[in-house]
């Protein structure tokens, strides 16, 4: 306990706390949207495509996250556009983008002279090294997403539930889809700092999977996902500190563990009831 208290006094740890809170909120909201609308695979494509931007940042000497934002948004809009216009199977298009982004990233980093510092933190994340800039960006995004969902909650829900019906009602479906997919891309990219490219998808889906065991309503899924996401991140942070393991992996491990425990509780509960 003493250990933990002294931990709280440390600056980097308070930053990590704030980062996990912001990550839980953004991923709680956006993840619920992704899971409900069944676009997890699209989000996976955006995630990996953004690695190309990180590589470009290294090569051209600007902040890799900036490159990731560019690649993320570009690929998100690309997927949105191509699956609608071009006669291309959506999953094939995404798989191609997925691999292309990774390939570009690898090529750029290979071409960059010398050692690529922090590369591992983009792949696996390191919540303990989030910078002030990261926190400011993540706070801004949290604000934008929270207000967008509060203002347009009904519209988002209805379009996600039945896009075709929304179109027959003359609602701005395309515009909403575009804004939402950009928010998905931004959420993914800014949370890369927290858990890394390889693990960010789980932060968008595991809290939702746990919540789905408790509720079948969109808004409750959002609140519960934020809660479980935060509990999981906290637990992961503490694990990572106590056993000196990478924080991203520890967070995901705690989340999966939490899912297992809750699921087992429900299974046991059901068995008892019978």
């Amino acid at each position, binding site marked *: 306990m003493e250990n933990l208290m002294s931990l709280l006094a440390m600056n980097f740890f308070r930053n990590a706390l704030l980062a996990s809170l912001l990550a839980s909120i953004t991923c709680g909201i956006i993840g619920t949207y992704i899971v409900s609308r069944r676009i997890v695979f699209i989000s996976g494509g955006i995630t990996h495509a953004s690695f190309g931007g990180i590589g470009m940042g290294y090569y051209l000497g600007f902040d890799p996250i900036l490159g990731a934002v560019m690649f993320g948004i570009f690929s998100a809009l690309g997927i949105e556009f191509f699956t609608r216009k071009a006669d291309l199977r959506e999953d094939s298009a995404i798989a191609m983008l997925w691999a292309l982004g990774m390939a570009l990233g690898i090529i750029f980093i290979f071409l960059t002279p010398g050692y690529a510092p922090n590369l591992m933190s983009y792949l696996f994340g390191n919540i303990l090294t989030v910078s002030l800039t990261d926190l400011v960006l993540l706070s801004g995004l949290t604000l934008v997403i929270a207000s967008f969902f509060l203002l347009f909650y009904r519209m988002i829900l209805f379009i*996600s*539930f039945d896009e075709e*019906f929304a179109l027959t009602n003359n609602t701005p479906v395309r515009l909403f889809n575009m804004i939402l997919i950009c928010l998905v891309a931004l959420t993914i990219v800014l949370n890369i700092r927290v858990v890394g490219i390889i693990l960010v998808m789980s932060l968008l889906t595991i809290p939702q999977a746990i919540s789905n065991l408790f509720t079948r309503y969109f808004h409750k899924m959002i609140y519960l996902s934020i809660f479980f996401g935060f509990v999981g991140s906290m637990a992961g942070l503490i694990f990572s500190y106590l056993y000196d393991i990478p924080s991203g992996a520890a967070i995901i491990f705690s989340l999966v563990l939490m899912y297992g425990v809750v699921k087992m509780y429900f299974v046991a509960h059901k068995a008892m009831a019978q």
Partner: protein
Amino acid sequence: MLQNLTYMVPLIDIRHLTVGYDENIILTDVSLTIHNSDFIGVIGPNGGGKTTLLKALLGLLKPLHGEVIFHDCMTEGNHHRIGYLPQINNIDRKFPISVSEVVNSGLMSKKQIIKRYDPKDLAFAAELMNQMGIYEIRNKAIGELSGGQIQRALLCRALVNQPKLLVLDEPNTYVDNRFEKELYEKLRKLNEEIAILLVSHDLGTISTYVKSIACVNHSLHYHPGNKITPELMEAYECPIQIISHGKIPHTVLNQHEQ
């Protein structure tokens, strides 16, 4: 003056409509006028263009040629007064949404992007759910409902905006017989107020409820009149014959039209 009281008021004119996806033309030169008191059954083989016709009517597909003209009474604000009941398998039944949320989503076009619902609209939605017998389960998630209950919710959603024309796409798939009969009785009652366009493969049942028949198979053959004669019954079988015998049925239809 008396002429203004004419029984049949045209709502929508479909004129020489050709629609399809890219180069794949599904419907060619289709014309149909829908009147205020119509109850049209749309029949035809799978892939014959029934759903495509609906999509063109709903504005989901742009015509390649021809046009769909909406008369003034069909337009309100920025949308057409059409209520749409899609095929149930277009719906994701695992989606986290409640029955009343589904029903209220029919009010979307009333410029309520941010605004709260009009209490009058909500009262009407509640009234509709009550009539359909789903008011008690309004707070349940759709994942917990039966096929028939989901259809009821979707029907409420289609009606909540008080449309002048109700369009239904295969409403009798995945529902039990009891609900099916109830649904058709409900439609007959609704037809006293609004026009109905019903797409169905179940020729036997719909023939007792609809007033006229449109057979869609790349083109459209309209059979006016509501008398169900044995000859007409034979004509209803046109889609089945088309599946097995190619182009023969069009001749059959023409014969029955005389």
